[in-house]
Structures are given as C-alpha cells and as structure tokens.
C-alpha cells in the first residue's frame, strides 16, 4: 500500500491490518513522495485518476502482487465527476482517496472513526476488483457499489460468502 498523502501511521496500520485480515495476506506500507502537480486539472480542480493509476508502479522499487495507492486529493476520471477510487479489473493496480470520504466535505462534523471505516472498506473494495471481483448485489458485501459516502457506511467491510468463494478460487492467488 503506497501512502501518497502523509497519512498518520496509526491510521495506515489499521487500514493495512484490516486488509490483511480480509485477504489473509501480508500488507507492506510504503511512503510515496510523488509530485501530484502534473496530474492536476485546473479546469476541474481535481486529479486525474487514470494517469495516477498508471503512475503508481513507478513509485516503488519492490515487487508486489498487488499495489494500491492511497491519496488525500480529489480524484476524477474524464467521464465521471469524481471517484472514490478505481482499479483495473483482475490486474495489479488500484487507487483510492480519502478526500470524499471525509464528513467535513458534506458539512458534517469531523469523525475519524467514520473516515477510517470508510477508508478500510474502499481499500478492500478496490483491491477486490484487482482480484477479479465485480460489484455485488448483497447489501452487506464490501463489493457492493457505492456512489455516495453514506452508501459506504451501509455496507460491511468483508466479502460476502459468494464473493469470498470467488476470491478463494482465483487461480492467480499465490
């Protein structure tokens, strides 16, 4: 997990711990000092998620099975007004941002617990796509599609039995 936004160590540890528990794998957290200015779109005042997604492998020298970049900035892709994160289905790379997961953005009181919970779900969700999982209709499954922050709160942080069995049957798992 590449930390691209000076995140608190405790926060990152909790996120990586949740990912390890869910996918039964080891999570290494690396600090990433990527200059984000080339990815900024002044017209949209957002950062290009597509280009960042393709850039993150260059931010580490180590070989990883999966890589997810965690950002603080507002991400977009050309066709959508914003994204919480994105991944390439069944491939190695994913990104996620806490920008739109913060309560403050919606005029609500800051809540670090909610932010942590949403971030864990978003990171597990995007990594799920890299394992080939598509959106799930199960209301409590972490792979359920969420287009609003409040929708993330409604679902759980774990894969439903059906998605879990698809994950476990993934032939690319080491």
């Amino acid at each position, binding site marked *: 997990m590449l930390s691209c936004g000076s995140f608190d160590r405790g926060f990152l540890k909790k996120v990586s711990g949740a990912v390890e528990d869910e996918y039964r794998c080891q999570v290494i957290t690396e600090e990433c000092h990527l200059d984000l200015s080339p990815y900024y779109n002044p017209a949209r005042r957002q950062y290009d998620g*597509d280009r960042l997604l393709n850039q993150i492998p260059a931010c580490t020298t180590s070989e990883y099975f999966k890589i997810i970049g965690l950002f603080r900035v507002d991400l*977009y*892709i*050309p*066709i*959508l*007004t*914003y*994204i919480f994160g*994105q*991944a*390439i*289905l069944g491939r190695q790379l994913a990104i996620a941002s806490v920008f739109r997961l913060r309560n403050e953005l919606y005029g609500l009181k800051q809540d670090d617990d909610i932010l942590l919970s949403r971030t864990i779900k978003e990171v597990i969700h995007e990594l799920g*796509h890299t394992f080939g999982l*598509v*959106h799930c*209709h199960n209301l409590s499954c972490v792979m359920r*599609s969420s*287009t*609003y922050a409040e929708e993330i709160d409604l679902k759980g942080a774990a894969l439903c039995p059906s998605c879990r069995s698809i994950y476990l049957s993934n032939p690319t798992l080491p």
Partner: protein
Amino acid sequence: MADKISILIVDDEDSVRDSLLNWFLEDGYEVEAAENAKKALQLLEERNFNIILADIKMPGMDGLELHRRIRSLNRETIVIIMTAFASVETAVQALKDGAFDYVTKPFDPDDLSHLIRNAASQIALRNENEALKERVTTLEEVDDIIGHSEAIVRVLQHIESVAQSNASVIITGESGTGKELVARAIHANSSRKYFPMISVHCGALTESLLESELFGHEKGAFTGATFNRKGRFEMADGGTIFLDEIATISPKMQIELLRVLETKSFVRVGGNREITSDFRVICATNRDLAAMVRNGTFREDLYYRLNVVNIDIPPLRERTDDIPLLVNHFIRKYCTSMSRDLITIEPSALKHLEKFEFPGNVRELENMIERAIVIGNGREIKLKDLPLGAETPENSVESLDELEKRHIEQILLKYNWNISRSARALSVDRVTLYNKIKKYDLRQKE
C-alpha cells in the same frame, strides 16, 4: 441480471472509452468499445448489444446518425446519447428519434449507475413481457387440441391457414367436440392475439338480453340499466368475438348482427352514439346452418357473411385413434390439478373407451376420466371406474334384430303384455308392435 446485460461504448476519446469500459466491467456487465460509428456498426453486424452509449460528436458519422442506423438494425437496443456540450436541440432530437436518454459528460457516478440500472430494468421488463406473451400464446395454442388422426390434423391445418387472415369462420361440430378450443386456437395464432377474445353463448340468452350483451346499453335504457355498460362487440375491439350456438339467434338479431358485420359499427341499447369496433367474428354451431337457410329459419345473407371459412370438427367416434392420446392428456391434466401422482389406465378399460360411441364427444371423455380419477384407487383407472353402461359393444355379440327382439320382450313383460301401453313406451303404433311380435315370434309365457 447485471451479468446478462451487454453494453457497447462508442466514443472517439480513448480516456472516455477506457474509463467507461473499466467502470462497467467492475459492475459485472459484458462490455465492448468502438472508437467510431463505423466500427460500432461493424460490431453490431456480428452481435447484438442491450445498451449502446454513443457520443454525439464523433468524426465521420455522428451519434444521432449512428442512433438512426442502430434503430433500423434493431429496435430493441437501448441507445443512450452522450455529449460534452449540453444542447437542448440535440437532446430533443435524440429523444424524438427514440433514444432512451441523453447525458452530459462528465456524469455523476450515481447518475451513471441509475441510468444503466433503469435501462437494465427496461430490458428485464421487456424480456418478462415477451415471456408472458409467449406463455399466454402457448396456453391457448393448438397444444390443447389433442390428436394425430387424419381428421384432427386437417382441423389443425385449417386453423393454421385461416388464423392470419381476418376472414369470418364458422366452426361446426357436434356438442362437446371442442369448437371453442378451435376458436381460441385461431385467435391465439392470429395477429389479434394480444387483444381479447370475447365469447358469447347466444343460446343461453333471451333476445333482449343478447342485444344488450352484444351492443351494451346506456344508463336508463331499460329497467335495471342503472349504469352504462360496454357490449361484447366493444370489448372485442382489436380482438375476436366468438358467437357460440349462432343458430339459436332470433330473426331480429340476425338482421342486427348482419348490419354490425357489414359496418363494424353499432349503437348501444338506449344510446344514440355510433360506436365502431375492429373485431373478427368466429361462430360455432352444432346445427346444419345450410339446411336452416333452405328452410328459411336462418338468413341466407348472414350465412354467407359468416361462412367465409368453415371448419368442421369430427365427432370422437370418427377419430377413435385419438382416444389413447386424449385419455393420457386428461389423466395428466386432472392428476396435476388435483396434485396427485400420475396414474395409468388398465388396457381393457382403454379398449372399452375406444369402442364407446361417446355421444357427448371429447367433453364426455374428459368428464369420464376426471370422475375415474376422483373415485378410483389412485394408481390405475379400471373398467369399473368408467360409466360406460353395463353393456358395451365389445361385450355384445347380438345383432340389431336380436337387440330389438330382446328390448321389445322386456317392455312387453314390464307392461304385462298390454299392447297399447307397450307400444306407447316403445314410441310405435300398435300395428307396428303387432308386426314386430309376429316377426320375432314372441309369445306370452304362462
């Protein structure tokens, strides 16, 4: 549902195609992308897509033109037009041309999800509708007309050939041969099948009731007409009206019916507004309408108007080959409706059924099988479960003369050889009875 929906993205911008492709793949849809309209049309020649998202501004053919081409290829495909430039005129034009929706780039993720969900719901509804239509058709199709005898195959061929036309049909056949079933099969195989088939049993109604039933009435038209009521001709608009027992209608109704058939318009009883209705007429009778025309009890002009096509259904006794099939069909039908395991019929019982005359035709056979299933042992229909009478032709080796002799003897015995009473019971005159007694050499026993 999501994994069954296929989506084609048509946009000249790589980033848009890639983003949408990835987004829909994550949603579990089957997705392909094309960089221009030409490529999209090539893909459409190879396969169908449920939903097409097409950019409005593309080099070469634009999204609106592509949409028109897609509509001419497959009207079922849902087309959503995308544009980076919001323009009311193009949006209106796209919707006028039948586009499902029109969206401005970039989309809100939630809007995109809703848009695709709505389109998917429409596809699901359409599929469900198709399935239901199919089911309705199957229910009323010729599957219910059982048999492989030459006579019934001829009836089925007739049904097939007349169904697609609008010609009036008269179905003739003895009571219980399945005239209404044939009418339903004609309706179900016609282009009118998605409109109602309205049945009217003319024989069960008096002249005034039939008039009100067929034409409807206005409130206050007669005592008891407390509200306006649509008539059967009005209800059958777009569909078929089935007039059973047509031979029983009065001369006055025959004139009225002829006028309606000629103009396809009528006035409700007590009303003055002309109502038009587009219906097809199918009639049925167990009487010889041609003979009724000859003896003046049925109007010749109405007869020719109705008798464009005649389908004659043979009585069951003339297609005994079909009895085993019919028996199995009714066993399956009633065991299923009574939630029972399927039962069989003992060979001797079936043999007796094949020899039986069945004056009530298929209806009588159906009732017999239903009764046998109800009163039987639940495993096999036996001869004793069938109300075939004590004597069936199978058991009888007597000639007609012998039967007559025995019957007359029984009657004479019953009336103690009182010739007048016996003749009355036999519905013959006394002279005939004397002649029969002499012919068969019948004598009163001491």
